[in-house]
């Protein structure tokens, strides 16, 4: 919205923004990711649930609606608003915080999960669009006792620095190995073309994935 007290010159605005610190911003806005979730939860309970109009069209929301999501082989009943993204449903409603929300715009692929084994950005998908599909998250890749061979290779190759992009990287590379057990480095580069790592650990990700591919073929 246009604000007459703010300069219209974009350069001035840009310089203005640089004065904002992260701490100051969080204080001023009074919101962290968890704070936002709580607020949304409070509003949600005041709204009506799903209403059905006719056989062809079903209206959901705007308040919370009960839905069932299939995640990592289990069915979960959750009550979510239609605007809840799949990433938010996984992290906030199901407590599966392995999936990271970083850019929240599909620009970094940190939130990568599989929808019927196809890698997607869960931050750019409404949770209701996952109904009837099998969602796989980083938590579902390993068993209780054994890491996925790719996870073991990431550890061995030290394919992470800060680790924040790692769940997304692993999900992208594991999806590649499901589809193509004989990837070249070019294939790995292509598979993670959307995954951003600001530490720059890409070469380790390539080597870990290529080694895991070899190990998985032998196994």
């Amino acid at each position, binding site marked *: 919205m246009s604000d007459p007290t703010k300069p219209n*010159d974009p350069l001035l605005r840009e310089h203005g923004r640089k004065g904002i610190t992260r701490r100051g911003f969080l204080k001023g806005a009074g919101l962290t990711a968890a704070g936002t979730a709580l607020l949304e939860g409070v509003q949600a309970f005041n709204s009506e649930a799903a209403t059905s109009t006719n056989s062809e069209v079903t209206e959901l929301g705007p308040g919370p609606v009960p839905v069932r999501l299939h995640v990592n082989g289990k069915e979960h009943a959750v009550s979510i608003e239609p605007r809840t993204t799949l990433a938010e449903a996984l992290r906030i409603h199901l407590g599966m915080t392995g999936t990271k929300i970083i850019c929240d715009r599909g620009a970094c692929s940190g939130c990568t999960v599989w929808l019927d084994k196809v890698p997607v950005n869960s931050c750019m998908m409404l949770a209701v669009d996952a109904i009837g599909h099998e969602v796989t998250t980083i938590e579902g890749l390993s068993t209780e006792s054994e890491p996925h061979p790719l996870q073991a290779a990431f550890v061995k190759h030290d394919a992470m620095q800060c680790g924040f992009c790692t769940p997304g990287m692993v999900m992208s590379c594991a999806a590649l190995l499901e589809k193509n057990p004989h990837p070249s480095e070019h294939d790995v580069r292509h598979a993670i073309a*959307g995954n951003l790592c600001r530490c720059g650990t890409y070469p380790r990700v390539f080597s870990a994935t290529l080694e895991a591919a070899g190990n998985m073929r032998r196994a």
Partner: protein
Amino acid sequence: MNSFVLAECTTVEGALSQLKDGAAVKAGGIDLLERMKNGTYQPSKLVNIRNISALRGIQKTQDGLTIGALTTLSEISEHPEIQTQYQILSDACGHAATPHLRNVATLGGNLLQPVQCWYYRSAEFECIRKGKNFCFAFGGLNQYHAIMDYGTCPAVAPSSSAVALLGLDARIELSSAKRGKRMVSIKDFYVEPDANPTKFTVIEPDELLTAVMIPKPAPGTRSAYQKYGEKESFDWAIADAGVVLEMDGNTCRRAVITMGAASPVVRRSQEAEALLAGKRITEETARAAGKAAMTNVQPLSMNAYKVDLFPVAIYRTILLAAGQASRDPSAAG
């Protein structure tokens, strides 16, 4: 993101019955959710067409191809028939956004994105595209903006699939509950900013984009698309080129040259096309065509570099289409 009612539809008729009172259509939702998260668009109702199976899939017909509006960019770029007969389209769909976004983003949604401009896409700037009387780009940061045919708004055309479909002379099927179906040529689909700055395509609020029809290519047709950006992935084109060549042996019978990131509406370059018609495709003719495409450019304060970049994009894409060069390693993706 604002809260909204979601109307889940399983049929086209059901979806059409919901298109009223400002309801927004949601397919893959990529561009829509971004605009909603940014706060530039706050519809109170979303019509979810994602689960209408009739709108998904690629069919070979007598006249060419029919692609359902919900077919994803990944499905199009990996389709064997499209990879061999309509290379320009598989190239364009295969280099948009990122692999994971292409797994969800649909052809219809890609074609219907509003223009790309950081002022238009920010909730903090009320510009001519939002019904106000000012453009921030002319006097502001305009390095990614248009260099030709921009009139009152130099935001660039966002859809890479449109650059390909303009080259292929595709037609778009629009359906409405009241008026039935109509077909619109891709060349008439987009609205110039001077004609109506707040309307991006000819689609009406009660219409759904249901399919795209592509005519069968003439014998000897070869085509390609390449996009150049600052990053290899997840970046908008700073220059892109679509090339369709109808060849008789080594001679080009007819050429179509298209560009996206040069102007607010995807455009052809008749000047470049004229230089190739009836000629052999060589490095010289390709370079000359690239230069000719820059007739009538009017770069802004920060984007004169595009006037040098576009000819290179066009020349290299002509050679790629003609089979005289491999995919440019400096092109995106």
